[in-house]
């Protein structure tokens, strides 16, 4: 008597496909992920915009979620589908085998008849039944030996008396193979296997079709999901980017000097917090800058006020220096020296105060340019003549017939300061050269060069030569001028929209180059 044992353990043993990969791991999602990754990289190389990155990140999350969900659903559905078929098949096969009385000893002919009977009752699908008993091979089909049954199943059938099954893919066709060893009852609780093993081979083409349909459904569900995910992605990117864009605009506005720029914080998120932080920093900055500006304005006003206050007493003193100078001749030597000292220093003080006033006007942006069209060569000649700089210490190379629109008074100061500086700190002869040139932007310029024959400017002094009260020679406590001459020169050149450059000649001597825009008018108005 042969009884068949439980088959509950069966499916657990057989949840593997013949190719060895875990069931449900379809290659399609992996391929999609890889192509998405490539697209992502390409997008990154194209643009690193925050919006792009946000949308891509959103889509990536959506894609991973959709694919994972689809894959899990697919796997569960597939397993459930296959399990139903398997369970039905196994239990049906077990019943068939149980109900069949195999006569012993086994003969191939009778065995084949029994197998045909079982095969006729294949459930849920028709199956082909094989039997193996020692060297005896029989089947319900044409071939006595199945090509689908694997050695593993044979081993498993031999090792496990309760029977087992395996899913096999052969030539692209899926099959369910069931091995059922026949047993006989040796006692009330013990069964012993006979050496007769019955196999059923059942094509599972229908199940495969259903599983394929499931896969297509999962894929078709994931793609529109991704497309729909783009909408919230764009909306989120927009809502995140709006404050960011506002922040950028505000930062740019601050950068351009509008320190009262503030952001209106919206909501309670991190971006609102960022806006608050920005506003706080902006207030702090505005406050500091305002204080600095006020301090600077106070300092400038103080300098201007001091200079102004000094002018009135100086006006009285300067008016009488002549009286002092003339009277000194009749005084005793010591008093005469003292009187002359006061007279000379009063004159220097007047120059200093005048220069300070001039600098204060530049600082307060109160300096005006009163332009006139003049002959620049004539202007240079007049500057030299007015200061009696007409001897052989001075050389000029001036082109004739030029016209330039400039402020004659300020141009006079520029030339006088440069020539005076060359004379006092450089050495004679001093050369004033004038020519026209073209700027890099194509506009014509008037170039005036003042060169001396002294030792030149030391490299350490060169960057500071236009600083106020800068002394190139530390040993010299006071120069002939106020110490503001070159600073005033620079301001005057700038007021003209020009540039000034200090350098040294290859053969020694300092060279100052002034470039002023050479725009001229010249029509009857």
């Amino acid at each position, binding site marked *: 008597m042969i009884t068949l044992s439980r088959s509950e353990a069966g499916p657990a043993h057989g949840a593997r496909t013949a190719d060895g990969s875990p069931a449900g791991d379809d290659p399609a999602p992996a391929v999609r992920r890889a192509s998405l990754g490539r697209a992502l990289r390409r997008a990154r190389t194209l643009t690193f915009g925050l919006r792009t990155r946000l949308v891509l990140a959103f889509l990536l999350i959506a894609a991973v979620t959709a694919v994972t969900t689809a894959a899990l659903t697919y796997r569960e559905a597939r397993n459930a589908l296959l399990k139903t078929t398997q369970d039905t098949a196994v239990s049906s096969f077990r019943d068939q085998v149980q109900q069949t009385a195999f006569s012993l000893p086994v003969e191939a002919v009778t065995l084949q008849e029994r197998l045909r009977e079982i095969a006729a009752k294949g459930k849920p699908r028709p199956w082909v039944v094989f039997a193996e008993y020692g060297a005896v091979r029989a089947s319900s089909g044409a071939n006595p030996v199945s090509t689908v049954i694997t050695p593993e199943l044979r081993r498993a059938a031999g090792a496990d008396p309760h029977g087992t099954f395996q899913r096999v893919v052969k030539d692209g066709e899926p099959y369910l193979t069931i091995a059922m060893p026949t047993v006989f009852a040796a006692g009330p609780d013990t069964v012993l296997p006979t050496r007769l093993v019955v196999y059923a081979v059942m094509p599972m083409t229908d199940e495969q079709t259903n599983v394929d349909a499931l896969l297509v459904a999962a894929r078709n569900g994931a793609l529109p999901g991704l497309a729909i995910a783009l909408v919230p992605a764009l909306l989120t990117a927009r809502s995140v980017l709006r404050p960011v864009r506002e922040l950028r605009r505000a930062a740019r506005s601050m950068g351009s000097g509008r320190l009262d720029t503030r952001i209106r914080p919206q909501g309670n998120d991190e971006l609102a917090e960022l806006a608050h932080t920005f506003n706080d920093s902006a207030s702090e900055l505005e406050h500091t800058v305002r204080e600095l500006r006020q301090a600077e304005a106070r300092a400038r006003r103080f300098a201007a006020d001091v200079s102004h206050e000094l002018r009135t007493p100086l006006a009285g003193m300067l008016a009488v220096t002549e009286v002092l100078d003339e009277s000194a001749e009749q005084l005793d030597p010591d008093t005469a020296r003292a009187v002359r000292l006061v007279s000379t220093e009063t004159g220097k003080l007047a120059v200093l105060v005048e220069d300070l006033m001039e600098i204060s006007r530049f600082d307060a942006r109160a300096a005006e340019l009163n332009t*006139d069209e003049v002959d620049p060569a004539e202007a240079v000649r007049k500057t030299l003549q007015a200061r009696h700089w007409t001897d052989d210490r001075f050389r000029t190379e001036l082109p004739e017939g030029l016209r330039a629109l400039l402020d004659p008074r300020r141009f006079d100061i520029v030339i006088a300061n440069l020539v005076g500086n060359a004379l006092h700190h450089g050495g004679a002869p001093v050369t004033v050269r004038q020519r026209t040139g073209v700027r890099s932007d194509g506009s014509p310029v008037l170039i005036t060069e003042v060169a001396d024959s002294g030792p030149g400017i030391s490299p350490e002094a060169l960057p500071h030569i236009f600083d106020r009260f800068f002394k190139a020679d530390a040993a010299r406590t006071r120069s002939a001028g106020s110490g503001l001459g070159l600073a005033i020169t620079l301001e005057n050149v700038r007021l003209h929209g020009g540039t000034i450059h200090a350098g040294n000649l290859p053969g020694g001597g300092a060279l100052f180059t002034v470039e002023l825009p050479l725009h001229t008018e010249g029509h009857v108005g």
Partner: protein
Amino acid sequence: MPRVLLVEDDPSVREGVELGLRRRGHDVRSAATGEAGLVALREFHPDLLLLDLMLPGMNGVQVCRQVRENSQLPIIMLTARGDDFDVVVGLEAGADDYIVKPARTEVIEARIRAVLRRIDDPGQGRPAVEVHGDLAIDRAGLTVTRSGHRLALAPSELKLLLHLSAAPEQVFSRQQLLEHVWEHSFHADARLVDACVRRLRTKIEDESQPPRYIQTLRGFGYRFGPL
């Protein structure tokens, strides 16, 4: 020697300038306020007024306007501010020249002499009275009439008109005018010319028409005519 009335509120400046000018032989009278200056003007009959712009009470510009109402007295402003705006306002009020304080006495005296100097008459052999349109310019008598009415011209205005009309249609740059009319050799302030031209135009031109006698050549300067 010229008689100079100095109106200056600061005692040390007043004393210093007075001392310096007197030393150079000028007859100087000084006043501390604008009001006192106007009173002194009537008693002293100066040849020239040296006027500080910043005065307590009536300021220099107001004094200048009041003097100009009925007098062609040469006026030189003294300005301590150096503020460009003040200079222009003072020049518009009728001052002939200005000096920025502090100034040496030699500078002050040179300006005084320049303002007082009669213009060299280049028109030898010309008729005593030249007629240009409605204007009749008497170079010998130094008077100008417009349609028969005598014009009250400040010294700088008269000099400028005489200089321009001596060479009709010739263009003078502002720099040239400053040198010839004001005798400024350098760091000349062209606004002096512009202010004087504006004042002169209000007196000789028809205000509803574009300037006829003193024409502007932008970028070059000014010229007299062509009529």
